[in-house]
C-alpha cells in the first residue's frame, strides 16, 4: 500500500498546475464562471476539452498509441485532485471518453479504433449513448429499435429516449435488435451511428431542472454501414455490459468526485458566510455534522475509486463490483445536496434569477439534478439486484 508521491509524480503535478494556471480564463472560479445558457455552457466545455487535448491533458489514462499519456494510477489521482483544486470545468465528451473509447478498446476492430479514438480524445467528435427506449429502461435487453441488414448496410428504425447530449453529438452508440426471433439478450447488436445520417430526428426533453440535456431520438430508415458493427452480429449485449461497467466504474466516479468536491468546498465557504440567527450556518451544530458527513462520504468515494483502480491494475476483472461504487456515490451525493438546501435555510427557495439567490442558484440546480443520480446508469434498485445476485450470490 502506498499513497506517497514520488519526485516524478510531484513533477507531473507541478506541470499540470502550471498548465492550468496558464490556460484557465483569468479570474476563473472567482469572477468568471461557466456560462449559464445551456448551449453556451456545452460549447464552453467542448472548447475546454479541446484545449486540454492540445495541452496533452485529455484522456490521460489512455494508451499512448491513441493520444493518451498512459497515466499511472497516482497520476490519475493527482489529475483529479488538481482539477478540483483549480475548480476546472468538466469536458463535454464524457460519454465518448469514458464509455465509447473504453468499449472500443475492448471490443472494437483495429480499423474502428484507428478511425474513432483519435477524434474522441481530441474533442472533434462528441458521442451520445442510444441505449434506453420508452419500453426498455431497467430492462435494457428489451430494446426494440430494429436494424435490418440490406447489402453492406443496416437499416435502423425505432426510437431511443433519454439520450443525453444527442444535440451536440456527431456519433452515437446504438443498441439495436438484429434478431427478433432470438431470446432477448441474444438478438441485440452494438452499432456506431453517424448522427448526420439522414432519417435521425432529435427532440429535446425538458428535465426536472428545466434544462434539456437529454432527448428523444428517432431513427427512420437510417443507413449504417456494416463496418460500424462492433463485435459480432447479435453479440451486442455483452459489449453493452462492458460499456455499463465503465459507466458505473471508478474512472467515471473519480471524475464526478472532483466535481462534487468542488460543490462541497463551495458549500462550506457559503455556510461560513451565511447568517443563521446570531451566528454563521457553519457554527450550527446540526448542520455542521451533516456537512462533515458529506465531507467524509465524498472522501471515501475517492478512496473507493482508488481501491477499485488498484485492483483492476492488477488484472482483477471489472464486473458487478462497479455497481457498489455507483450505488455508494449516488446516495452520498444526493444527501449532500439535501444538506445544501438545509444550509441555505430561508434562502433555499430562491433560484438563479433572484437578487437574494445564494451563489447564483448553483445549489438549487445541483439539488434538482441530483435526483437523476439514482436513476441513470442503472437505477439504485437495479444496482441492488446486481449486487445481491452477482456479488453476494443470492438466488434470482
Amino acid at each position, binding site marked *: *500500500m*502506498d*499513497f*506517497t508521491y514520488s519526485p516524478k509524480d510531484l513533477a507531473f503535478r507541478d506541470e499540470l498546475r502550471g498548465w492550468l494556471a496558464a490556460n484557465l480564463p483569468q479570474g476563473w472560479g472567482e469572477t468568471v464562471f461557466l456560462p449559464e445558457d445551456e448551449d453556451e455552457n456545452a460549447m464552453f466545455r467542448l472548447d475546454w476539452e479541446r484545449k486540454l487535448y492540445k495541452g496533452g491533458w485529455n484522456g490521460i489514462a489512455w494508451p499512448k498509441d491513441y493520444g493518451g499519456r498512459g497515466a*499511472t*494510477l*497516482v497520476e490519475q*489521482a493527482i489529475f483529479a485532485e488538481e482539477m478540483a483544486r483549480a475548480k476546472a470545468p468538466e469536458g463535454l465528451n464524457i460519454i465518448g471518453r469514458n464509455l465509447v473509447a473504453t468499449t472500443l478498446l475492448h471490443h472494437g476492430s483495429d480499423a474502428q479504433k484507428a478511425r474513432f479514438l483519435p477524434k474522441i480524445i481530441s474533442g472533434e467528435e462528441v458521442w451520445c449513448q442510444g441505449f434506453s427506449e420508452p419500453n426498455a429502461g431497467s430492462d435494457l435487453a428489451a430494446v426494440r429499435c430494429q436494424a435490418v441488414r440490406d447489402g453492406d448496410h443496416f437499416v435502423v428504425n425505432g426510437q431511443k429516449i433519454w439520450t443525453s447530449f444527442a444535440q451536440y453529438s456527431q456519433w452515437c452508440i446504438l443498441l439495436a435488435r438484429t434478431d427478433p426471433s432470438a431470446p432477448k439478450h441474444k438478438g441485440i447488436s452494438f452499432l456506431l451511428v453517424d448522427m448526420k445520417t439522414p432519417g435521425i430526428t432529435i427532440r429535446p426533453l425538458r428535465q426536472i431542472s428545466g434544462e434539456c440535456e437529454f432527448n428523444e431520438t428517432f431513427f427512420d430508415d437510417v443507413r449504417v454501414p456494416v463496418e460500424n458493427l462492433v463485435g459480432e452480429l447479435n453479440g451486442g449485449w455483452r459489449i453493452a455490459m462492458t460499456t455499463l461497467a465503465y459507466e458505473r466504474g471508478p474512472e467515471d466516479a473519480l471524475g464526478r468526485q472532483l466535481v462534487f468536491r468542488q460543490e462541497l*468546498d463551495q458549500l*462550506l*465557504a457559503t*455556510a*461560513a458566510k451565511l447568517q443563521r440567527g446570531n451566528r*454563521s450556518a*457553519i*457554527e450550527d451544530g446540526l448542520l*455542521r*455534522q451533516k*456537512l*462533515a*458527513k458529506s*465531507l*467524509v*462520504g465524498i*472522501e*471515501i468515494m475517492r*478512496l*473507493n475509486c*482508488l*481501491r477499485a*483502480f*488498484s*485492483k483492476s491494475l*492488477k488484472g482483477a476483472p471489472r464486473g458487478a463490483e462497479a455497481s*457498489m461504487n455507483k*450505488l*455508494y456515490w449516488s446516495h452520498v451525493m444526493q444527501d449532500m445536496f439535501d444538506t445544501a438546501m438545509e444550509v441555505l435555510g430561508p434562502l433555499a427557495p430562491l433560484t438563479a434569477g433572484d437578487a437574494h439567490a445564494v451563489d447564483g442558484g448553483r445549489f438549487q440546480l445541483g439539488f434538482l439534478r441530483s435526483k437523476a443520480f439514482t436513476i441513470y446508469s442503472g437505477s439504485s*434498485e437495479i*444496482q*441492488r*439486484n446486481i*449486487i*445481491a*445476485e452477482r*456479488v*453476494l*450470490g*443470492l*438466488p*434470482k
Partner: protein
Amino acid sequence: MDFDFNQEQYMFQDTVRDLLASALTMEHLRSGTPAELWGQLAETGVFALLTREEDGGLGLGYTDLALIFEEFGRALVPAPIAAAIVAGGAIARFGTPEQRAQLLPGHGEGALRLSSAFAETVATVPAAMTLTARPTDAGWTVTGSKILVPDAAAADKLLVALRFGDDLGLALVEPSRAGVTLREQDTLDLTARYHEVIFDHVTLTAGDIVGGRPDPAAVVACFDAAAAVAALQMTGMAARTLDEAVTYVGQRKQFDRVIGSFQAIKHRCADMAVAVDACRSAAYYAAWALDEAAPDERARAVSMAKSWCGDNARFTCNQAIQLHGGIGFTWELGLHLFLRRIKCEEASFGDADWHRERVIGATLRSMELAG
C-alpha cells in the same frame, strides 16, 4: 500509488483467519476467551509486529496489521488483545530504550500482558481527559480513575493516558502498584472483562513515563492508533454480520421460497455490502496513515474511518439481526455479541460525532474559513 495489500499481507491474514476459525468459536465467545489464545496469536507474530527490529521485533506497521484487525473483528477477538497491541505499538514508537527492552520482548511472546487505560467517565478523547499527575518531591502522584480498561486484572502493565500539569503524557503502571485498585465493571460487551482502575495517591517516577517525559504528540498518536484499530475491527464485525445474514437468507424458507430471493431482503443485503466496502476503504486508508502520514492527515484519515465505520457497523449489524427474524433476537444465536461489542467500539476513542467534528474543523482551517 497502490491502494491494495501485498501477497505477504494477504497470506498473514489467511493464517490468522484460519487460526481464529478454530481457536475462537461462538462457543468460546459465550464461555470466555480460551487461555491459549494469547500464545497462539503470539506465535503468528502479531504482538511483535510493531516492535522495531533492533528491539527484536518485526519492524512493521499498522498497514501490515490492518487485515489482522479486520479478522479480529470478524472473529470477535476480545478487546484486551487489540488493546495490548496498541499499547505495545506506543511503547515501541515512543518508549525509552530501557522501557522497550524491559517490556517488548515479553509482550512479543504473549507472556507479558499490556493493556491501555484511556477512557474516563467524562472523556474518551485526549483533550477531555482529567486524570492528572501532581508533582511531588519524588516525582508525581495520581488520584482519580480510568474506566473500561480491557481486562486490567490480567495485565502486567497498563498504559495510562493522563495529564502532567498541562501536558498530556503516557505512563506505565502495574495494577499491583500501591494505591491502585481495580473494580470489575458490568458492561454491554460479554466477550471480555473490563475494569475501572482507581488511583489513590499512586506514585509515578520519570521512569514510568513513556519516553521519559510527557509527550502530548505521543498521546494523540496512540489515541489515533486505537481509534483506527476500532474502525478496522468494526469493519470486520460489519463484514461478518453481512456474511451471517447472507448465509441465513440463502437457506431460510418462507412462503415456499428461500427468503433471499425476496427483493426487499436482497436490497438490504446489497446496502450492507456497499457499507462494508466503504468501511474497508476508510479503515485501510487510516491504517496506512498511521504509518506514513503527517499528524494532520493522520488525524483526518482516522476520524473519517472511526465515524464512518462506527455508523456502518451499527447499520450492518442491525440489518443482520432484522434479517434473522425471531432467532436473531435470541441469546443463543450470538448476533447480540456483535451488537454489544460494536456499541462499545463506537463509544470508545471518540464517537462518530466527535470524529466528524475533527474532520470538518480541520477542513475549514485548511480552507482558511472561520468557524
